[in-house]
């Protein structure tokens, strides 16, 4: 029978490390695969291994099961996040119950662990933390965390574009755009997230781009497209829909795109009309 992973063993492989408080989060139960202080005592579903002599422990577990409590009503567990896996500091029984109830998510207080040698991971985590603090958004997932800085820039640019539009409408009514280094307002974040980022991610996750980059989250693809336009055009052109932006990106990056109007019969038609060389 499989056992849960042991934090001490995993962290010993890392060498020197540091931790970063990531605060309260909703985490995937499936990614909780280890424990800090119950090494060798729990099976893969956080149940006690073999016959336990600890009557008190047995009693507490049974009481949790019989009470049929919603785990979501209980206080958050505490976990370390190490290499994409969660290790339980406090809350092994709650995790066992969550797994028994086949819950997908639960609340947790998360502390991230990084090897000191992995500066990219540290910088990425710092970037994500800044993003979360400035925007209040905690459900934006990126596989490549350096992209959070780009998302912050994107929100700022989105806010400036909105302010410019409003300013044009009100013809200089004093509603200036926020400065680049000013944290975005929550309203600005909300409009960017629900009106631009999420629809764009929905489009990206259904596109062939996500199949081309299998490890990437839709958010990572969004960042890639945003960086492309920032570097070439200084940002998104104002008039273009995201569908059009994606098409432009595909073209520039030589990614395949269906353009049915370029089929041979249509090319021939244009040639007959003198609009195109045969």
């Amino acid at each position, binding site marked *: 029978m499989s056992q849960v992973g042991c934090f001490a063993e995993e962290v010993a492989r890392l060498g020197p490390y540091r931790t970063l408080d990531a605060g309260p989060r909703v985490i995937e139960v499936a990614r909780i695969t280890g424990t800090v202080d119950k090494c060798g005592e729990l099976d893969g579903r956080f149940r006690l291994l073999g016959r336990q002599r600890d009557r008190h422990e047995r009693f507490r577990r049974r009481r949790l099961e019989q009470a049929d409590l919603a785990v979501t009503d209980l206080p958050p567990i505490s976990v370390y996040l190490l290499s994409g896996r969660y290790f339980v500091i406090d809350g092994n029984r709650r995790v066992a119950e969550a797994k028994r109830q086949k819950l997908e998510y639960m609340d947790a207080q998360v502390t991230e662990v990084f090897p000191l040698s992995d500066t990219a991971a540290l910088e990425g985590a710092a970037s994500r933390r800044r993003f979360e603090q400035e925007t209040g958004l905690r459900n934006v997932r990126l596989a490549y965390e350096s992209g959070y800085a780009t998302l912050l820039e994107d929100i700022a640019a989105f806010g400036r574009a909105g302010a410019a539009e409003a300013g044009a409408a009100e013809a200089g009514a004093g509603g200036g755009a926020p400065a680049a280094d000013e944290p975005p307002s929550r309203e600005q974040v909300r409009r960017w997230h629900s009106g631009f980022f999420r629809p764009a991610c929905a489009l990206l996750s259904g596109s062939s781009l996500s199949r081309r980059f299998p490890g990437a989250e839709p958010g990572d693809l969004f960042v890639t497209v945003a960086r492309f336009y920032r570097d070439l*055009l200084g940002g998104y052109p104002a008039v273009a*829909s995201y569908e*059009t932006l994606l098409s432009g990106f595909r073209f520039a990056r030589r990614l395949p795109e269906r353009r049915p109007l370029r089929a041979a019969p249509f090319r021939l*038609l*244009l040639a007959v009309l003198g*609009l195109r*060389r045969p």
Partner: protein
Amino acid sequence: MLRRFLLRLILEEAIRREEEAYRFYEAALEPVRAPEARALLRQLCAEELRHRLKLQELQLQPESLEVEAHDVQESELLADSGPAPAPELAGLRPEDVWRLALDKERLAVRHYGLLARRTPLPEPRRVFAWLAAEEQRHVDWVLGALEGRG
């Protein structure tokens, strides 16, 4: 219906031309070494991509393609020309690259100018006229680069 479809085809052809221009300037970055000239080539790449986006956006808006009762003499449009296939630029001197670019940009000015004059629909006409002005600006830039000899 037919004319609306034809306009879609015309827009697709214009998009294809913009793509070709983008690839031309992208390829021209190879033989051109002077930093200022390279910056101009990158700017031209950006402009051609911007035009492509503009045209595609127009193509995606069916309401802007609604037909007015007006006869479009499509056969008159640029019967004399079409963009030449992108040449191999690797061995060319910078001034030859700029001369080729000048020909392409002048052709683009004519192309969009004619489309703007011949298209009866207000929104496409406005976009084509804007594109013609844009391409004229590119002609001026390329002439400037030629005078500076790339």
